[in-house]
């Protein structure tokens, strides 16, 4: 009853019924890989929630003060306010350690989910026209996420992150012509400058999150405008979206996912120690920890710095230090390639039509090969960032490991990319439904790109049925015989005030499929889920009928205008 009054109250001011009904009927494709982006979104929410709590206790300043908190080994020591407040919020603020660790874990999940999402979009060709804009927005969000991860973990002014910051400073400094000035402008002077931590704090808690929030909004607005892409399957084509509706299916599912992301975040934050800055000690330019590894998402840069040989040179007497290449050039090329990929691919393939159906990764062997090679390359770099740990574990000199990683960094992507390319061609050419069923003949066919022709049945004997419910509204369904006991049936996501409008929508979704009259689903006197019907009882039926009358009246009124 309250819901009903609230709806009427809002609608009489905002005229919401029609757009909200349409939004609630929005169809989402049912595929688990479509959840990565949502996981990223919800870890962003978790980051904002936990981060707000942390910001109330963190002091973004490198001013020295004497520590008097409950962590005994630091008692009475003079340390920076940033470091002291981090240790205090870990040990002296109730639930502080939980929130801090949950925040850090959420950041790792955030970036991991973004990368999985990126991989899904890449390998299925979802970035193709018309979704290039959202690809650009997404890559920008990835750079911002990496930036915010790095500033967040550098702010506590501990020895490990201070060393990482020192390296980042050196990388900026290595840029020809502008490096020194850029480093000074960004960090506020020669390293370590007092300005650095306050600047990182402001960027970390305001500038970057605000930009991310804006871009997330843009990302989702574009997504809603363009609707979801979908994998090819019976009943799906370039003119429709098949799946479950926003209300109630996806509302419940997405809330479940949100709660699950929070559960994982807090379980990790409570049970698994992360970034114990009190063990590393405060930053001191004369000390360094060994072994020293950064968070995994910046490890590719760290690995590249370790693998790239000493190759300083001079131009007209000016120095180009070797960290410039692994530190700046590699990063710039990486993001340039990401930004440019949709346009490069369109240029190479000459494919410029808009797509609603996704590729399977095998459909595009060259793209798969490039993607696999890139993933392997960056994975080797991440591995190389821990070469000192491997050297210790394997008891081999680190220099020979560096050479191993250098060969791997060049060889493994090449080999893996080629392998992926040929396997994709074999899968595409042959009739094997999956990787494990590939035969030797498929491999041969793949090498020659001699594709087995399709089944050649022509268009399926599908039909559209339109019917009226309760003498009020019209719906349609797509029916396609599957050869099995049950036909494939897809029901229109929304109802229509007239038969003509229902037929028009059906024709838009399935051009060329014959339309005929149909019968309402058996036993469907009232369109409700069995569970809610059971819970509701006769009273609910009365209310529902009343609701239909209201809808009908609204429709009639709007038509008479």
């Amino acid at each position, binding site marked *: 009853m309250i819901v009903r009054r609230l709806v009427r109250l809002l609608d009489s001011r905002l005229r919401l019924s029609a757009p909200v009904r349409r939004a609630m009927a929005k169809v989402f494709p049912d595929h688990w890989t479509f959840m990565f982006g949502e996981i990223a979104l919800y870890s962003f929410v978790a980051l904002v929630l936990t981060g707000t709590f942390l910001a109330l206790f963190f002091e973004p300043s490198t001013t020295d003060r004497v520590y008097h908190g409950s962590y005994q080994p630091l008692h009475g020591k003079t340390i920076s306010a940033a470091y002291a407040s981090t240790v205090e919020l870990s040990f002296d603020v109730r639930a502080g350690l939980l929130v801090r660790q949950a925040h850090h874990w959420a950041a790792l999940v955030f970036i991991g989910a973004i990368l999985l999402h990126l991989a899904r979009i890449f390998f299925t060709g979802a970035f193709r026209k018309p979704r290039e804009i959202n690809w650009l927005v997404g890559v920008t969000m990835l750079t911002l996420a990496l930036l915010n991860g790095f500033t967040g973990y550098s702010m506590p002014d501990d020895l490990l992150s201070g*060393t990482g910051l020192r390296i980042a400073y050196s990388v900026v400094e290595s840029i020809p012509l502008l490096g020194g000035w850029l480093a000074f402008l960004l960090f506020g002077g020669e390293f370590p400058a007092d300005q650095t931590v306050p600047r990182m704090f402001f960027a970390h808690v305001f500038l970057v999150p605000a930009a991310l929030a804006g871009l997330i909004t843009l990302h989702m607005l574009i997504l809603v405008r363009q609707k979801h892409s979908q994998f090819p399957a019976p009943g799906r084509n370039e003119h429709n979206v098949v799946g479950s509706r926003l209300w109630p299916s996806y509302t419940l599912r997405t809330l479940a996912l949100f709660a699950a992301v929070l559960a994982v975040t807090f379980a990790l934050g*409570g049970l698994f120690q992360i970034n114990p800055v009190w063990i590393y000690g405060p930053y001191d330019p004369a000390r360094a920890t060994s072994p020293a590894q950064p968070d995994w998402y910046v490890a590719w840069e760290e690995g590249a710095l370790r693998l790239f040989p000493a190759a300083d040179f001079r131009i007209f007497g000016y120095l180009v*230090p070797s960290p410039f290449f692994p530190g700046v050039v590699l990063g710039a090329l990486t993001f340039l390639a990401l930004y440019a990929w949709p346009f490069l691919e369109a240029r190479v393939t000459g494919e410029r039509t808009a797509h609603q159906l996704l590729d399977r990764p095998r459909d595009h062997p060259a793209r798969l090969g490039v993607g696999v090679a890139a993933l392997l390359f960056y994975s080797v770099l991440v591995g190389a960032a821990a070469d000192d740990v491997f050297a210790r574990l394997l008891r081999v000199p680190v220099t020979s490991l560096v050479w191993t990683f250098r060969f791997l960094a060049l060889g493994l992507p090449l080999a893996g990319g080629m392998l992926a390319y040929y396997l994709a061609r074999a899968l595409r050419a042959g009739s094997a439904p999956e990787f494990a069923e590939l035969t030797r003949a498929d491999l041969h066919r793949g090498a020659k790109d001699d594709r087995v022709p399709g089944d050649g049945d022509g268009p399926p004997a599908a039909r559209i049925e339109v019917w009226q419910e309760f003498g009020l509204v019209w719906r349609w369904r797509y029916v396609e015989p599957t050869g099995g006991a049950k036909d494939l049936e897809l029901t229109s996501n929304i109802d229509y005030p007239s038969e003509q409008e229902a037929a028009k929508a059906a024709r838009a979704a399935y051009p060329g499929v014959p339309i005929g009259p149909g019968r309402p689903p058996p036993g469907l006197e009232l369109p409700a889920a069995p569970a809610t019907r059971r819970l509701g009882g006769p009273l609910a039926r009365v209310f529902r009928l009343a609701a239909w009358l209201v809808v009908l009246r609204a429709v009639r009124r709007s038509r008479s205008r």
Partner: protein
Amino acid sequence: MNGHRRRHIRRAELAAAGAFLLAALGAVGFAVGYAFGAQTQLEGVALAVACAGSAAGLGIGARRLGPAGGHVEEHGGFASPELAAEALADRVTEPGRGWRRGVLVRLLGLAVGSIGLALLFPLRSLIAPRLPGPTHTLRHTPWRSGGLRLVDTTGRPVRADEVTGNDIVVVYPEGHVGAGDAPAFVVRLDPSRFSARPPAAGVGGIVAYSLLCTHAGCAVGLYEQGTGQMFCPCHQSVFDLLAGARPVAGPASRPLPGLPITVDSSGFLRATGDFSSPPGPGYWSRP
């Protein structure tokens, strides 16, 4: 069939109800744990149970109690009809008569561009205005004033006879402990093993070098006595102190700068000037 379905729904309802109850219990557990100052692990688990219970309840509700799949929505196409797009383009390109000649548009561009450029100037404020720029600052360190005593990280002056060959002593200029570009180390070596002269004057076998790696500026903290080599823990550069701190492995390409030192009349080590070259990583205008 119907009875079976009813039982199925009943079970799902019970499972969802149980999950929501568990979630409420978890939340209460967290609140109680917080009030009594429970351990981080307990708090985390309680909160995780609360969230996981909600997730399970909602998930069961979505998967087993509601409709799923089987719906289709038409896609109206990505582009407007061509005529509509043309009409919009026409509308956008007709701002008014005076604009059409292009002069005004160009002048507006000039105005906006100049404002943009002018607004770049305050960026200089990001570096404290009275400080000199990077070219000067990066080249010089506090050692430059000359005659400063070498002090250890606690600020205690270092005597020449305290420096052994067993390990390095990390030093700062007196009065500048913690200065980012100044950390150095002293160690005693056997001059007969030198294959190259140190870049700066030592005292007997005592040599002093910058502690900052010439690759990316980490503290080159690990000394191996037998080989007289220094290791950087960040990117595994190795510097040979017997050969003027030349880099012998890893990504560093320049030797560690030397610090000229002497012994004063009371036996303390003093620097006679700045490092033999700018310490730390390379940069464009590095001499």
